[in-house]
């Protein structure tokens, strides 16, 4: 699941080869300059479409987007 979330993240932010360097502990918010508000929304939409989940608007929080690991856990919790 981490790899799939990472692939969506890499595609959305156009990270190209930097995608492979991301692991569970990699910080996202504040660490990736590409992750501005438009990118956050694009990423949420892409995750919804890719995994068939619906993100409630009160779930858009800084904790969710802190690291690749936290984002993956969030997607897993939506699929559970």
């Amino acid at each position, binding site marked *: 699941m981490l790899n799939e979330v990472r692939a969506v993240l890499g595609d959305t932010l*156009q990270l190209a080869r930097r995608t492979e360097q991301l692991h569970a502990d990699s910080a996202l918010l504040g660490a990736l300059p*590409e992750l501005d*508000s*438009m990118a*956050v929304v694009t990423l*949420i939409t892409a995750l919804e479409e890719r995994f068939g989940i619906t993100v409630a*608007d009160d779930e*858009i929080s*800084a904790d969710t*987007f802190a690291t690749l690991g936290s984002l993956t856990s969030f997607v897993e919790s939506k699929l559970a």
Partner: protein
Amino acid sequence: MSGRVAQTQPRFFDGVAGRLFGIEFAPIGAAARATILIVPPFAEELNKSRRMLALAARALAALGYRVLTVDLYGTGDSEGDFADARWEIWIEDLRRLAATGASGTASPVSILALRAGSLLAADLIADGAGVERLALWQPVSSGAQFLTQFLRLKIAADMLGGNESGMAALREQLAAGKPQEVAGYMLAPELARALEGRTLSSEALRVPRRVAWFEIVARQEQALSVPGQRMTEKSRQDGASIASETLVGLPFWSTPEISTVPGLVASTARFFAEAAS
């Protein structure tokens, strides 16, 4: 293809609420056979898409079409502030442009609409505008869903700024008639309400002689989106002449860096070339 195949001319059009800035692309050395009106997407998606729309306009002018791109009232280089933009003004301006575009040529205008521009195009058609061919790029089927995605930009920006706000509060403010700034765009409650009430209907897609529905996918094996499948099937059942195609590429209307999908321009040109030949 080499050399110049189209001439471009910046123009101002008289709109109902103010002058509109546009660019006219015309074939060189021949009279245009028909006009294609480009109906732009919403807010920041337009800035991200300008390059793709210009590429398409040039390619279509090379086929012998006159192509009009226009910044809607309150957007881009047109007059007015975004806060004063209203759906009804946009529709009336587009209706006039479509009527002007049709004059002097044998056929009604054709339309290329991107994203939420598809909802405007559908409204225009429902309003009685005759449309020859309609090409839709990654059409937005639900205005309500699109508005939610747009409002999320503010939620996300607030999150990045360290203060978490709520969608419910944001909607309450709009419902109370208070304009809200979202991603640098002052959204009027009237415009939000109009957008929220729009859906792409199969009735509208039945009117043009031919419709092409294009979607961008990340990988070759991906099919048309679920709403896309639903809409095209329903429209076909209702008698529309509609074809769909997916193209691999980046979602250029939202990528952090300006990106293009040349295959989409080529497929769109093929769609309009059928009619031009």
